């Protein structure tokens, strides 16, 4: 098996991202999966994208637009 490389995009480990760690993943072409060298996460591109979506759970106002002019102090 040859060495791992980066994928077409430079995905970070979603598990580490959720604990505020930006860790680039490597792509194992033989297995068709990304893997994290810091933790135990592995996943296909589809799984990584799903996990990234999950990581947004805390951003409940991510898509809300605020009107500060209407706010009272």
């Amino acid at each position: 098996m040859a060495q791992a490389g980066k994928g077409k995009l430079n995905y970070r480990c979603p598990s580490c991202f959720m604990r505020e760690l930006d860790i680039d993943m490597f792509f194992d072409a033989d297995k068709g999966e990304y893997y994290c060298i810091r933790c135990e996460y592995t996943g296909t591109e589809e799984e990584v994208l799903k996990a990234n979506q999950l990581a947004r759970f805390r951003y409940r106002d991510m898509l809300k637009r605020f009107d500060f002019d209407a706010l009272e102090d």
Partner: protein
Amino acid sequence: MDKLILNIIHRPEMVPEYAEKVTGHGKAEDLGRKTLLTESLDIFKIQQECAHKNGLKTTIQMTYASLFNDEAVSLAKEHHEKYGDEIALTLLGLPCEQFRQKYKTKDFCIWMFSMEDKMAIVDDVFGKFYERFGSYPESTGSYYMDAELINYIKGKYPMVKCAVATCWEEGPKAYHTCNNSWYTFMDGGPWAPWIPSKVNTHAPAANEEEDSGIVAIPHLSRDLIACYDGNGSNFGTHPQNVLRGMIYDTSTWEYPYLYNLIDQYRHLARYNNGYAYNMMFVGPGWMNKMGRWEAPYELLLKSYEDGCAYYGKLKKEGKLVDMTMAEFAGHYRAVKGYTEPECALWRDILYGSEKQLFWYCDPFMRACVNMDQGGAIVDLRPYAAKLEWPVGIGTPHIQDASYPFLIQEKYRAGYFTHYAGEGTVRSAKLCWNGEEVDLCQCRTKAHFSQEGKTRKLTLDPVEIAFAGGLRIKVQTVLSFPEGESVIRIERKLLESSDPAEKVTINEYMVGCYGTTEYTEDMSSLTLSLRAGDTVETLPYEYRCRELSLAGAEEAACVLPPIRTRVSLAAEGADKAGYVKEGYAFSPMFTIGYTGTLSEKEGFTTWLRLERAN
């Protein structure tokens, strides 16, 4: 009408910090690689175009590497003539073949070099700038500019009037996010422009004598809740940082959070006599053709175009004024006095919590008040000490440029600890019939007002229900009298279910000192109580001792390692001061007061910060 002032800064960084690592994956390091140089300059051109087509002027911060590039120099001159852009000089972007050959190092952060090297590099870079442009720059900057560096630059190049001088709350959190590999430790500074003191960049100057001669601006305008709580590099006026935080809709590529962030900064004019400020500074590595993490190039580009378009829209609506850095420095000095604080009652715009933090910064302190903890002070930096803290090789703090804290709830716990010991916080407990309730358990909201030169934070009253049946309503008012190095906290017992009952109030501050999560040696600290001629002292020996003194006029702690003296004074019924030493498992100190409260009565404390000599 209040207007947001905007600085947009671009740097032609011929070897972007990130692009070399990302685009060069699988290649041996080659700083002179032609494709890298070409791409870098192309990104700079795109960034300039994004600003100009939205009617916005920029400050072009030439890097050392770009001074060797004729096209970059020519573009800067052309854009200065055509758009009024300022040609400035950054101390970022040092790495290039010429720099490596000359200085024989891979260091690239100016504040980490030895003083001798700092002076040599500054003279080299400023000299090269003069050679290319026939004059010296009026603005400069880096991620951090230490006081010794600023003093040297100002002494030798007095025309410099503005500098990018810190990244707000970029310290241990950023280090951790980068897998403990990104050594930018610079927590504890102002989030908005300030005049640095000659002694410590983070601590604003209190008067002309302390004035370093420049106006400092922060690197980006950052979310004052999200960056305090989490990684600073995800939540600022840097569109690609917002993508880094994954704060966008993957199907529509929309990111209203970025606009909310800008708008909340506009809103801060309400707390600062009509003045509000934003800074956007995106290095070219964030717009490289290979994409950045999950974001493809097209999204990186779109986000920058959208960011500039939003600023441009605000300008067209008369809500924004774009300035160059040098123009801004003049404006800042015209509208701000030395002791005038910067205030920010910041609302959560991301997590849906409705939480508020109040940030206060003046030449004597930076303080954070958390309304989700009943108005507790959860971060406190004693600028009154104007702490000498040289950084760089050859100093005691090679990388650590953070201003030390007395209270930092994230690094040294806050109200909550794991069932033993105490964490740093300034709060109060209400006690009755053997029960104790900390105001940290009471979520509330705050209202800002200014009375003369005092900024006030009036909190909505909170209700405390004791299991024994007594219910009381308590209100907290925090006042920050300008220029006095004091925080006054008034508690009022507004209502009681049994007016005949008294409750005990325990006003306390648990503190320590440091710049990281890990404890420092507390052995040199001294606690004391004073009442008239009576002074009782307690040298810190980790022995869990306590002292109390009825009628005390002051409870204090002196912290020689950070040249700080912190004290509490109080007014109220049955007041008694106390100090607590702490122990090895809980290496904190406590200063506080107890007293009693009946319905309609109040208890007031003054927290004072001073330099300890």
